[in-house]
């Protein structure tokens, strides 16, 4: 016999491990034991196999590798006796998991044990299957488990029920096999079986719609009755916790009722009474009672509306919120987040308490409360809430500041009532926690500052003051440096003084000092230093008296190890030295940054469809008037690659984009004026809503309703290829003709090169729908005629209806006049308009188009925009 195999007893090994003073000693003990076990394994030792495996489990728990023992588990499971099987299955659950191939080998043993005559061995097998079952095993062994749901011993039935949960989670298709057996478990009296049965039915409902319907119909009433029995049951010592008979069963039942009641008014109705009883009668002085109340509140919130119950639920949460136990407050905050969608007003009443919770010492509570506050903010309470949050930011833990800062910035951006408030709050946040502020947040701040021309002076002076106290906050320094560079002279001369401000005296050299401090800080990163260099260059021009000193600072960076800084430093000093004549034009103030472009870029790609009223998160009402062209630029900005630089006039663009079609468009819209400048054309384009004179040709008569017969015959005539090409050459007549085609395009083949293209819904919002029909002119594959049809399903008439479209450079777009500018309500009529698109990259790139629709509803301007990407291919 191998000298190792006699080995030590399990408890001796544990004792030896515990006696180790150092990790090295422990490793030595383990090494010795492992060697002995390996030797035993290779000798195929029978007697000590389960003892060895027990040791291996302990070794595994200590964190040592034990993979060599995996096959031993299988051998033990295959052994005959209960003790071997017990250790074998335990080892299987601890040392292996469902992903290991070895597991496949165990399926057969499991099958045998599930059919074993010894019910304890059946129990072991069920337990192992429940904990490690894979999808394949689930399929193979589901019939056995299903049968065991009706086993005589309740211990097996409850294990089989939980095993079934694992099986249906792995293979949801198997759910229907378990329906009947699961339903019969609900009639049991044994609590263990009942609780597992309820859990199984709940999970069946989650994986299968069919099961949900089945249980809703068959079991809602009996479950309500069962809960009533459990709630009113007399004292049961076996299940009693804090005076409540089996709170766990209460909770399982409430959860099952929630699943049954969700989205079904009848089922919800059935359970109202019992829910009210649980909500009012449950003792709330112990954790067990509160756990039930908490579950009950969640069920009330989830099932179909019953305002009485909801008041009850919100009141329970209110009580929870003022509880002294932190656990209870935590769950209250958690549940209020769900309640806010149901009854926002009721949650608002607890705002003060919730705000206090943000300042709690316990990170778990703080986190929940902050999430909740974020949901609570609206236009009316944003100012006091933000004030509180910023005050708390000053004293909060370092590790909470990041999260808090992000939330404050997001709230301020979203709900800011005016620019000055936005700037003030952002400066406070930057001074307190500038290091936690993300780059895009302070970039957005700069865009807003740039747009608030009346606040430039105020902002730069505030930043100057903030810098004096908080120069360690990186992002504050960056914003301050940028603003001083841009608006330095306003700082020195107290330009644009607001009433609320105290005047300060800042000399030109003070302003330069700030930049010098910033550039020489050790903590300054590349971005800050680069921004400082540019600010210095700008100041050298604005403060001629400091020019010499500024050059000295810039020159110092010639030795910078960072190539970018070194290069800029050399370039800038040469500008200051040698190019006095161009310097002042070179360093002019930045043009106003366009908010719409910026926020569009920030949001990534604009949403494809749907009403996005300006889509700007920085939608500040008292902002400076935007240059009229800006939205158009936004509109034209189809691909981010060729983002247009913001310019004050969009004319160039338009000319560029619309190219040759400009003159035609102008003449079509009934103005004889030649396009002198792009902006005029733009205006012309916008006024296409007025009925064009040229289109009142004879073909227009066909359009009048009540003449369907004649129009069909006319249509047949003109839809022959020859007449189409003849008429198609006249752009003036194209529009009405296309109107005509539109109505019958489904029944008649579109003439042309023989190809037809499916119509698309180009855009669809709440009420507005745009359909596009396509046709091709023969012999010109690049050109596509698009017939747009607008319809309005809302009850209001849209007046002054204008449709605009823009395309990328590889396309050319020509818009014909629309059939009208009033869109009748409720789909009673439509406006049509034809578009001609020429695709210079035909066959390589598909069509793409960005659109904007402006109209008035009850005299109120409305704007919708979107992008059309779903054009048929090969257009």
């Amino acid at each position, binding site marked *: 016999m191998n000298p190792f195999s006699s080995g030590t*007893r*399990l*408890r001796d090994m*544990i004792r030896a491990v*515990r*006696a180790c003073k150092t990790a090295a000693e422990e490793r030595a003990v383990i090494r010795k034991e492992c060697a002995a076990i390996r030797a035993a394994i290779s000798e195929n030792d029978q007697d000590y196999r*389960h003892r060895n495996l*027990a040791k291996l*489990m*302990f070794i595994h*728990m200590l*964190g040592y*590798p034990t993979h060599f023992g995996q096959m031993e588990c299988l051998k033990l499971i295959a052994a005959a*006796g*209960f*003790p071997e099987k*017990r*250790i074998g299955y*335990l080892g299987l*659950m601890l040392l292996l*998991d*469902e*992903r290991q191939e070895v597991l496949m080998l165990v399926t057969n043993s499991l099958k045998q044990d599930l059919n074993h005559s*010894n019910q*304890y061995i059946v129990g072991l097998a069920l*337990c192992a299957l*429940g*904990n490690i079952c894979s999808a394949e095993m689930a399929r193979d062994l589901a019939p056995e488990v299903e049968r065991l749901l009706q086993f005589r011993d309740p211990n097996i039935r*409850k*294990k089989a029920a*939980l*095993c079934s*949960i*694992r099986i249906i989670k792995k293979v949801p298709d198997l759910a229907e096999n378990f329906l009947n057996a699961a339903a019969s478990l609900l009639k049991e009296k044994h*609590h*263990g079986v009942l609780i*597992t049965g309820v*859990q199984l039915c709940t999970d069946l409902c989650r994986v299968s719609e069919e099961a949900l319907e089945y249980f809703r119909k068959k079991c809602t009433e009996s479950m309500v009755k069962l809960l009533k029995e459990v709630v009113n049951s007399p004292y049961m010592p*076996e*299940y009693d*916790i804090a005076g409540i008979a089996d*709170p*766990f069963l209460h*909770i*399982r039942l409430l959860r099952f009722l929630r699943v049954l009641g969700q989205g079904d008014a009848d089922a919800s109705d059935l359970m109202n009474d019992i829910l009210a009883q649980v909500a009012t009668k449950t003792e709330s002085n112990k*954790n*067990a009672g509160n*756990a039930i109340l908490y*579950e009950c509140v*969640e069920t009330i919130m989830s099932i179909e509306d019953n305002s009485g119950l909801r008041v009850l639920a919100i009141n329970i949460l209110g009580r929870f919120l003022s509880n002294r136990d*932190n*656990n*209870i407050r*935590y*769950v209250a905050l*958690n549940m209020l987040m769900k309640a806010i969608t149901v009854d926002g007003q009721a949650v608002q009443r607890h705002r003060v308490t919730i705000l206090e919770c943000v300042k709690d010492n*316990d*990170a*778990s*509570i703080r986190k929940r409360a902050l999430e909740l506050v974020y949901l609570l903010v609206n236009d009316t309470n944003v100012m006091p809430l933000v004030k509180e949050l910023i005050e708390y930011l000053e004293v909060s833990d370092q590790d909470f500041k990041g999260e808090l800062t992000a939330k404050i910035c997001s709230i301020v951006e979203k709900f800011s009532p005016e620019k000055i408030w936005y700037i003030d709050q952002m400066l406070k946040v930057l001074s307190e926690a500038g290091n936690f502020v993300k780059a895009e947040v302070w970039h957005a701040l700069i865009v807003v500052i740039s747009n608030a021309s009346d606040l430039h002076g105020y902002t730069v002076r505030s930043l100057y003051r903030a810098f004096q106290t908080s120069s360690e906050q990186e992002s504050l320094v960056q914003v301050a440096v940028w603003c001083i560079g841009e608006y330095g002279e306003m700082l020195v001369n107290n330009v644009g003084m607001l009433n609320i401000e105290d005047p300060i005296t800042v000399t030109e050299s003070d302003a330069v000092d700030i930049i010098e401090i910033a550039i020489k800080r050790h903590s300054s990163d590349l971005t800050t230093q680069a921004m400082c260099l540019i600010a210095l260059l700008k100041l050298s021009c604005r403060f001629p008296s400091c020019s010499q000193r500024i050059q000295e600072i810039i020159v110092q960076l010639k030795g910078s190890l960072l190539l970018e800084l070194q290069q800029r430093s050399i370039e800038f000093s040469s500008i200051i030295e040698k190019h006095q004549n161009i310097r002042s034009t070179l360093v002019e103030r930045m043009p106003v940054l366009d908010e719409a472009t910026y926020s569009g870029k920030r949001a990534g790609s604009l949403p494809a469809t749907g009403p996005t009223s300006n889509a700007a998160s920085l939608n500040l009402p008292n902002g400076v008037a935007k240059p009229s062209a800006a939205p158009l630029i936004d509109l034209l900005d189809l691909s981010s690659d060729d983002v247009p630089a913001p310019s004050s006039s969009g004319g160039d663009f338009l000319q560029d984009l619309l190219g040759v079609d400009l003159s035609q468009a102008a003449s079509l819209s009934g103005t004889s004026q030649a396009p002198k400048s792009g902006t005029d054309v733009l205006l012309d384009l916008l006024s296409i809503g007025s009925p064009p004179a040229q289109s009142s040709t004879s073909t227009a008569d066909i359009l009048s309703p009540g003449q369907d017969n004649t129009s069909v015959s006319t249509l047949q005539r003109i839809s022959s290829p020859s007449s189409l090409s003849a008429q198609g050459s006249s752009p003036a007549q194209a529009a009405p003709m296309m109107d005509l085609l539109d109505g019958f395009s489904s029944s008649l083949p579109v003439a042309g090169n023989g190809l037809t293209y499916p119509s698309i819904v180009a855009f669809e919002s709440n009420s507005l729908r745009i359909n596009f029909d396509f046709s091709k002119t023969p012999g010109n594959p690049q050109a596509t005629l698009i017939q747009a049809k607008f319809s309005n399903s809302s009850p209001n008439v849209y007046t002054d209806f204008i449709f605009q479209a823009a395309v990328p450079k590889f396309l050319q777009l020509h818009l014909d006049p629309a059939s009208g500018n009033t869109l009748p309500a409720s789909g009673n009529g439509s406006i049509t308009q034809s578009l001609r698109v020429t695709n210079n990259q035909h066959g390589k790139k598909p069509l793409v188009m960005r659109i904007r629709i402006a109209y008035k509803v009850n005299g109120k301007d409305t704007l919708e925009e979107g992008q059309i990407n779903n054009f048929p291919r090969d257009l």
Partner: protein
Amino acid sequence: MGMADPNRQGKTRLAKYYVPLEDSEKHKVEYEVHRLVVNRDPKFTNFVEFRTHKIIYRRYAGLFFSLCVDITDNELAYLECIHLFVEILDHFFSNVCELDLVFNFHKVYLILDEFILAGELQETSKKAIIERMGELEKQDELENILLLQASHIFAMPRAEKAVFSASRFKGSLLGKKIQ
């Protein structure tokens, strides 16, 4: 989804996973959970958010019992669940202490398997579980290897030493007096 009972030094006494994880990942989880839980003030909530889940924990003497559950689960119910489990252990080992769990870890697993299966609660009656354990032990005949009487623990020489202080040797998890 898993249950772990690390002690104050971060040694795991029992860990059970109901979702598949690599061994290395299990150790990482146990370590992280221990770090999260051990420094929290006793007055704080018994809940900590962990990755996409939630840890429900409760401390008994030097042992932390932690459950990792879904974010939507009922925290208070799981807290009650931990207590019930400790009460069952206390009943079974008559006045349980940490060393009971160390030397009889395989039995603790057996109890746990009677209490929770596939991540779901299986039995809520203390009595039923204790009775079931009695039956299982009768099945298990190899007592010389695997069965240990709870009294052995207190018979062990104090000098056995190691990471636990003497007070914790005596300390029972539920703070009851030792006979």
